[in-house]
C-alpha cells in the first residue's frame, strides 16, 4: 500500500456537492508562484497541476482530510481554506 490514491480510497468521505470548502479564488497568484507548495504539502493530494505554465491548479476538495496545512504552506495566501458544512467531509474511525 504505497500509492496515495489507494490510501485515500480507505478513508470515508461525505462530500458536499453543493459547496466547495477549499478554493483558489485567484489563479493569477498560482501562475506566478514558483514554489506551489500546495502540490506537495497536502497529505491527500487535493491540489493538482499538469506542469504546463499558465494552466490552473486544480482542487479536488472531495478528498480533503481537513488538516488545513495548505493555507499555511501557500506563500501567496491564495488558498482559501474553510471547514466543510456540518455533517460533510472526512470521517475518521480508527483514531
Amino acid at each position: 500500500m504505497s500509492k496515495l490514491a489507494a490510501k485515500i480510497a480507505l478513508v470515508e468521505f461525505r462530500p458536499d456537492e453543493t459547496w466547495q470548502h477549499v478554493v483558489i479564488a485567484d489563479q493569477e497568484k498560482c501562475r506566478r508562484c514558483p514554489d506551489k507548495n500546495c502540490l506537495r504539502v497536502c497529505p491527500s493530494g487535493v491540489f493538482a497541476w499538469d506542469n504546463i505554465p499558465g494552466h490552473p491548479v486544480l482542487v479536488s476538495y472531495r478528498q480533503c482530510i481537513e488538516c488545513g496545512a495548505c493555507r499555511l504552506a501557500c506563500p501567496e495566501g491564495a488558498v482559501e481554506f474553510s471547514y466543510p458544512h456540518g455533517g460533510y467531509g472526512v470521517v475518521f474511525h480508527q483514531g
Partner: protein
Amino acid sequence: MMSDWFKTKKPHKLPTRAQPATDAPAPRKYDAVVVGAGPAGASAAYFMARDGLDVLLLERGPFPGAKTCGGAAIIAEQAHELFPNFWEEFSYERIVTRLDYWWLSEDSAVTAGFTSSRLSAAPYNRLSVKRKNLYTWLAAKAVAAGATLLLGHHVAGVLLDGYQAVGVRVAPPQSTDYLADLVILADGANSLLAERAGLIPPVTAANLSLYAKETIALPPATIEERFCLPPGQGAAIGLIGYPTAGYNGTGSIHTFHDSINISAGMSVSAYAAGGFSPGDLLERIKKHPRIQPLLDGGVTTEYGAAMIPEGGYHAIPPLVHPGLLIAGDAASLVNGIHGINLAMWSGFYAAKAAFEAKKNRDFSIRKLSLYRTLLDESFILQNMRTNAKAATLQRDRPYLFDLYSRLANEAAYQMVRAYPMPVKDKRKFIWRKVTSLQPVGKIAADIWQVLKVVKG
C-alpha cells in the same frame, strides 16, 4: 484474565438527539456554548453542566473524534484526577507498559526504553486510545451531566456585540445563531474561528506541525509477540532522526488492540522547504529495516493527517476575551507529546472560570481571567514554561534530530564492531569518525544549548 480485559468493556452509545429544523423559532440563550467536542470542549461542557450551567456543545463531525486522527495515548494519572477511574467507563485499547525512544539512521537504530509490569496497575501510566472512543465517551458524560450536544453543526463564526462575544453562528445546513453569555472555543489546532474574529494572530507554518498516520491491522497475538508484550499491554515508541528526512520532527508507533498506529510529522514550513508530503515520510518509516518487520503482513485500514500546534509556550495566543475563552489545541496547549491531557485540564479550568463568571453575572475579561490564572498556576503552563525554549532550539538548529541520530548510530556501530586493533586506537578511530560528522566545538555548543533548554 488480562487477555480478556477488552471483553468486559462496553462500547458507549451516545444518546441521539433530534436536530432542530432550520425554520424552528430562535433558540433560547445558553449560559455557555462550546465549539468542538474534543477533549477540551467536552471536558469544559461536562464540568460546566455538572455545576449547573446551561451548556450547548457543538460538534461539526457526525460523532466526536470524527475529524481528527493520530496516536494516541492518554496519560491516565492526569485524567484520573479529573475523571476518577475513567478507564472503567470507555473502551481503551491497551495499557502501555513499554515506552521506547528510537534514534534511527537509514539502516540502524539506537534505542532507549523502559518496560515494567508496575505500569500495568491502576492508576495506569498511559493507555493507548482511539480518539473516537475517548471523545465519544467524554461527550456522553457531558450530555449525562445535562449539556446539550448537537452533532453535524459547524460553527462558522463568533457573534460579537462590540468586543463582547454573545454567541455563535452555525453554517448551513442549519444556519442558526446560538446566543450565550460565554463562548468557549475548542475547535482544534487550526482555530479559524478565533483567527477570523480577530482574537488571535494568524497561526504560522513554523508553529504548526502536520502529522500523517496509518492504521495497520494485525492480530492481537502478533502485536504482543512483535513488541514483546503480555496480553492486553501495549507499547508507545517515539521515532527520531531518519523518519523526518533530515528535518526536526518525530514519528511514533502506538499499539492498539488489533492494529498499530504509525505516524510521522514535522512543521508545515519544513515540508514546504523539503518539497515532500507527510505521506512520503510515512512510506519512509514503513520501509525502514527495523520497522518493516513490525508491520509485516499487516493491512492498512485507514490513512489520515492532522495538524498539532508545536510552537510551545511562546506561541500561546491571548486566551481570555470578553465573553470568550480558548482551550485545548486551539489555545496551542500542546507540550511535546502531551496534548489530550492538557486539553482536558484546560477545559476543566475554563469551566471553573465560567462558573465564577456566571455566579457574578460578569463575563468581562477581568472576571474570566481566572481561567488564565488557573492555567498559569497549574502543571500545564508550568511545564510549558519549562520547555519554552525547545521550539526555538529546534528552529535555530534544524539539523539537531537528524545529525545526532546519525552520530549516535555511527558511534554505536563502531563500538559494537570488534576490530583487530588495540582498544586505545579503536577509541581514537571512533572519536575521529564522530567528529568528522560534526566538529567537536559545534557538538559542545549544541550540548550546551540543549542542556540550557532541559534545565529550563
